[in-house]
């Protein structure tokens, strides 16, 4: 490929050069990090907590396990995992964005979480861990922001121990046309306005709505996980398919 023919990828509905997406996504999250939790509660009317709880239940994490929470942001999953793995286990909170990681670390420290949690600024496409390191990997609302999703899934499969499980919690495609219509109205009209009012940044929340639409649907993501080397991949639609929880096992 000649240097002039730059490969592009989507950033919401825009096409941007591949090497530019990560920095653009980073800008979005630098901008919203401080109000991230408040906005999540407001946008989802608190249901995101239930989706995350279901992820934790499906993760089957036990005392002594090593868990990697990718794109862990403000540490909602890490907080719970750190209790479940106990002092013999370990949780790594990884995020590409330093602002989000800082908010997450402060929040976890305020909640008395210490000894068994590590913080790593890492790109999901090239995870800086040895092969077969983790019993469980979760990525909640993070995969759609990754530039090369296939590379990220392959990287996750690599660092997962045999028998370990990968859980991907991500926005998906609602299976009811009526719900889909209402959801579109909500996310394209109301969401940017809420972002403007609460986080003072409507554009970032417009990107959120657009990036959700550009994210692969349930079946496509399942096929991508299988292609990355995971087996027994299954998914569960939550809240009518607005969100889907995919789970795959490395055998």
């Amino acid at each position, binding site marked *: 490929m000649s240097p002039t023919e730059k490969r592009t990828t989507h950033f919401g509905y825009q096409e941007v050069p591949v090497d530019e997406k990560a920095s653009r996504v980073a800008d979005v999250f630098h901008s919203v990090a401080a109000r991230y939790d408040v906005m999540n509660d407001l946008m989802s009317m608190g249901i995101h*907590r239930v*989706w995350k*709880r279901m992820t934790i*239940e499906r993760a*089957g994490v036990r005392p002594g396990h090593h868990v990697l929470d990718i794109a862990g942001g403000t540490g909602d999953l890490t907080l*719970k995992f750190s*209790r*479940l793995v106990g002092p013999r286990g370990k949780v790594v909170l990884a995020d590409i964005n330093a602002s989000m990681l800082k908010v997450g670390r402060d929040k976890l420290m305020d*909640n008395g979480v210490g000894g068994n949690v590590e913080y790593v600024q890492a790109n999901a496409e090239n995870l800086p861990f040895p092969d077969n390191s983790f019993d469980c990997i979760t990525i909640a609302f993070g995969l759609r922001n990754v530039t090369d999703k296939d590379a990220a899934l392959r990287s996750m499969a690599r660092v997962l121990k045999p028998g370990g499980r990968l859980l991907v919690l991500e926005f998906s495609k609602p299976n009811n046309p009526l719900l889909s219509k209402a959801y579109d109205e909500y996310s394209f009209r109301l969401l940017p306005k809420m972002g403007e009012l609460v986080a003072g940044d409507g554009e970032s929340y417009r990107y959120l709505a657009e990036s959700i639409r550009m994210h692969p649907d349930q079946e496509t993501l399942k096929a991508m996980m299988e292609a990355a080397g995971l087996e027994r991949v299954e998914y569960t639609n*939550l809240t009518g398919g607005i969100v889907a929880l995919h789970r795959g096992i490395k055998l």
Partner: protein
Amino acid sequence: MLVTPTLLLAGCERTLNALLARDPAAPARLAALVGSRLLIRLEQPHLELVIHYHHAGLDLMRGEGVDETEVDAVVELTPETFSEWISGASIERLMFDGKLAVRGRIHLLEATRELLFDLNIDWESELARWLGDMPAHSLAEGVRRAARWGLRAKDELMQDVSEYVFEEARLLPGQQQRNVLRDHLTELEIATDRLEARFNRLQRKLTQPPQSASQEPRL
């Protein structure tokens, strides 16, 4: 809906943790349980629940698909046994009666009951966090005084109503009147029995031959 049980569990967990945070005895009890996992299997409605203890309280999770080797104790019980258990029945008795099956660290069950059902919440200290020590104490003292007055008023009202019903309006018999009536009825019952016996003997006398009648004792 798929998320409903999770939502209910989240609500229960939040409530229990909020209550435990206000119980002065809870930290010591929790410290002894930290890291333990208890699987509860309830029959009808079928429900599997994992309780995981940590320093700040407990996590409640659905237990479907959880292997018994992943938990410290497994309890299988019916709703009736559950209500007996929380009302203080001895775990040994329930086990010997075959109503309760426990595997693993049995004492976890006793510790769980102690933690969750012997809650002694310090409301005054919670109020003090919001209002300050003095206002909280005054308010708590006021509530305690009101509660004492309420109990005394209830006792006096019950006494007055019973006096009116039994003594003044005579709508219902009192205890003493009932005893007298019972004595009279007993006497009447005995007298009736005697009379019946006499009638029977007279009847036998009239129907039997004269030689056997002469052997009858006198009335």
